[in-house]
């Protein structure tokens, strides 16, 4: 088993950038995206309190259902799609290989 996975960020329709993420550091997708230079505020530091790490999951493996705190925050945002998630609430594990996400515009 490898100790890294590949996730993809759709920067424009059909244009995806690969991000390699370690699985042995208990990081969240938000932390990995931030470390990869994406402009994510993550004001609350990953506590599902601010909504500034909102992403849309476009494809890839099935994820665990969002928890109550995550759903409550997502529901309070102006835009919520079928794939809406808080990237700070998704832990990087081996199961995540191939995940494709799109960053939601700041403020949504």
């Amino acid at each position, binding site marked *: 088993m490898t100790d890294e996975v590949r996730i993809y960020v759709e920067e424009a329709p059909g244009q995806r950038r690969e991000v390699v993420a370690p699985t042995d550091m208990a990081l969240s997708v938000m932390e990995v995206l931030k470390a990869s230079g994406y402009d994510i*505020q993550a004001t609350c530091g990953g506590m599902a*309190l601010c909504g500034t790490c909102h992403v849309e999951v476009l494809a890839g493996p099935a994820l665990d259902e969002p928890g109550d705190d995550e759903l409550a925050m997502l*529901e309070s945002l102006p835009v919520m799609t079928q794939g809406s998630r808080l990237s700070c609430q998704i832990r990087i594990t081996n199961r995540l290989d191939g995940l494709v996400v799109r960053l939601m515009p700041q*403020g*949504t």
Partner: protein
Amino acid sequence: MTNSISTDICIIGAGPVGLFAVFEAGLLKLRCHVVDALPQVGGQLSEIYPKKPIYDIPGFPDILAGDLVQNLMRQIEPFHPTFTLGERVERLAKLEDGTFQLFTTDGTEIFCKAIAIAGGLGSFEPRKPAVESLETYEGGRGVYYMVRDPETFRDRRIVIAGGGDSALDWTIFLADVAKEVTLVHRGTTFRGAADSAEKVQKLHEAGRARLVLSSNVTHVHGQDSLEAVTITANDGTAETLPVDAFIPLFGLTPKLGPIGDWGLELEDDAVKVNTLDYSTSVPGIFAIGDINTYPGKLKLILCGFHEAALMAQGAYKYMFPDKRYVLKYTTVNGVPTL
């Protein structure tokens, strides 16, 4: 009529650091006026995490963020600071004598001898739904992103949008004030306070408020002011409703905002300071707390408090270059009052 205020230090931002700066300035007998874009004091502590315990405030093994804000307010009482809340500082000008004039969004003018920017992550701005021409009706013409004075909506027809606590709470409150209240929520369930969701459901059943689920406000219409909104259901059906006010309540998100345009030297959206006294590149303007940056910066309340103490000394020296200040401990002299 323009509201005009005159003070020694104008503190921009009523977060924990701005509030503690009032105390440190007060010890030096400097008067403070505090401005914040939010309608309440406390910055991130009140806006994002009022019910969360904080463990790294000296002397408090744990304290709820909201309680820390209350304690800070008590601590600064003896200095009688004045406040302008719910207004953002937009612009500032340095006058010929080295003093400053600040202008807020609502036309308040503040004259002061020094400025302490304690703007944190910037001012909290409402998250706006993507509805075309929404901004046409901002500024009192029918679209409101927060309820400052419920009386604004007395006997009016209003549509509230959102699924969080504040959308529910204001629907309940305004049902008694407004002529008609409609709550539009994109989902079918409400998380958060179950009790509030139940109350809204009961108001709906009693015909005192209307609840429209699985829908969004998609269009706004009107000439000079808002006259109607179109609500579109997830299945595509739409209705246009005559209204006097539309209140989208989707929470707030921090933005650096106008601070970035004041000619201060910046680095990564933060204001560069000299750690000697937390002065910025413009003499007389200081920056403390999360808004500033310097080598080794930590965005912690504790560090902001330390910066506030040094800033107050620096501001004193800027205002009174010829006076010598001798540090006195509050344990020896007690807390002086203004």
